[in-house]
């Protein structure tokens, strides 16, 4: 009996960075190879797992059936595998239509929850999805928001992210409690944060391995590798995936009114996470 480590976040909050760090860490701190798809920690909303482990054609299921069966899928995969399974998650923590947990505690070995200042998330989401900043701010504030809306992408089920505040609240109350990693802390001291993550995931790693993984995922290096080999992960066609990778970049991008709107929408949760809500 194996189980899952869920690498969870609202979109554009450092999820891919964390997965690349772990991919390198598990590979002994080796450099990453973008000339082939990064296979580590595929999406928990990928149809291929469901096709394989539940013996159905998941693309012919309704969105409700897909969501419902994700609970069963997690248990079935955990029962059928011995090694820990890592999956990327953008869903909010929650339940299937019939009330069963989407990420069953019984199949969960641990969770990493990445969180980022919503003002930076909004800027990054606008770039990634090809919307205006105001549309991105609307999206962050929208209750019940989904990504990969039914039938939009063939390689992912619809995922309910909810509003940014509700997403964070759901994962802070998840069972078992996740290790919360702030993008800003990861950015400031990746070595220290990665060491914590490794311990949470039961991975033993030498100082050299940790340093190698941090080196392999320096932002300038990821940007350079993207320029050479490309990196497609759902961003609008023709856009870079690794855009800027800094904390606080919103200050030179958002207007006062836009920043204020995000604080108005999400101030309570921002303060709970100790983000400075001043502009």
């Amino acid at each position, binding site marked *: 009996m194996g189980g899952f480590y869920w690498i969870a976040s609202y979109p554009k909050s450092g999820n891919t960075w964390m997965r690349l760090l772990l991919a390198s860490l598990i590979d002994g701190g080796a450099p990453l190879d973008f*000339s*082939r*798809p990064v296979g580590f920690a595929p999406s928990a909303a990928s*149809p*291929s797992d469901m*096709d*394989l*482990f*539940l*013996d*159905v*054609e*998941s*693309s*012919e299921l*309704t969105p409700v*059936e897909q969501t*419902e*069966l994700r609970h*069963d899928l997690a*248990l*079935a995969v955990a*029962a*059928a595998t011995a090694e820990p399974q890592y999956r990327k998650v953008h869903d909010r923590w929650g339940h299937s239509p019939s009330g069963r947990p989407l990420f069953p505690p019984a199949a969960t070995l641990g969770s990493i929850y990445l969180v980022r200042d919503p003002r930076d998330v909004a800027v990054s989401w606008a770039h990634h999805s090809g919307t205006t900043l105001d549309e991105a701010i609307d999206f962050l504030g929208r209750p019940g928001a989904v990504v990969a809306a039914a*039938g939009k992408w*063939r*390689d992912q089920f619809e995922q309910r992210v909810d509003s940014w505040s509700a997403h964070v609240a759901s994962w802070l109350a998840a069972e078992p409690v996740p290790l919360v990693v702030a993008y800003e802390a990861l950015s400031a001291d990746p070595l220290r944060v990665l060491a914590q993550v490794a311990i949470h995931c039961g991975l033993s790693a030498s100082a050299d391995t940790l340093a190698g993984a941090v080196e392999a995922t320096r932002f300038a290096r990821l940007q350079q590798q993207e320029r050479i*080999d*490309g990196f*497609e992960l759902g961003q609008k066609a023709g856009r870079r995936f690794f855009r800027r990778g800094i904390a606080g970049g919103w200050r030179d991008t958002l207007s006062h009114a836009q920043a204020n709107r995000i604080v108005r929408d999400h101030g309570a949760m921002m303060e709970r996470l100790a983000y400075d809500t001043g502009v």
Partner: protein
Amino acid sequence: MQHEDLAICGLRVRSDLALPELLPWTADARGVDLVIELGDVPDRVSGAAETHPLIQVSADGTCRFAMPEVAAFLVSPDGRAVTVAPSPGATEADIRVFLLGTVFAIVCQRRGLLTLHACCVRAGSKAVAFAGDSGVGKSTLAARLRARGHALLTDDVTVVDMEAPGGPLVLPTFPRLKLWRDALESLGHTVDGAGAIRPGLDKYQLPLDDGFCNTPLPLAALVRLDGNRKAPEGLRLLDAVQGLGELGKVLYRPRLMLRLGTQARQMAQFLRLLSFVGGLRTLRRPETMAGWSEVEALLPVLAD
């Protein structure tokens, strides 16, 4: 309710459920091979060995598959009878998706047939199969080849008779292609003329009409479509070990054999199939006119 007998993969089918996808049975007057009846299906089959959310297999090999709110199905150990218990509110289209998918794969495995996750196109007097995961572009490729005048034997599932005297024989399924709206429209069809495979789903059935090859043909080649855009160009032959490693991407519902206990036979059949067709080949999935033309040009080579 008595419908005329139908044909799928060379089997004579008598069904309580209407199966408009299937052609009528027109061959010899032999007995019925597969009976599909409406009836009660127990919630549990006795002595089910494995815990699976949708599938139970009893000690005698009876297999129960159920999709909540659609139907429960019971397949006899010899694969000659299927009992269907529809859920209240389920449409016949909903039920057929699972009956002609997972349930028919169970029937085939019980009857000793090999099921590949592949579409299959006629190339001269032989068949060439293109395999791969869902979404890799099998049906789109099939539709493109059909539009260029190549007849199809199967769309998503290719059933192979490994006991045929001349080697692996592809058994035609039924004259329909399943396509997403964008693929259908890019081929110049509209969704108005095609029925959605299930109410509310954006996937449609395209009738093949005279583009269907209803004659079993020997399998000449097996090509796995690789969805990785960074894969090398051109057709590549995998060695035997690599070929075996692709088992899960080439067999239809590859873990079903573990539930049914048929893995020894299925694995042996797959190895024999690879040997007959000269190994597994891979090809980066074609996505452009040039790509489809390349595949078309390869057909005579692959069938040779």
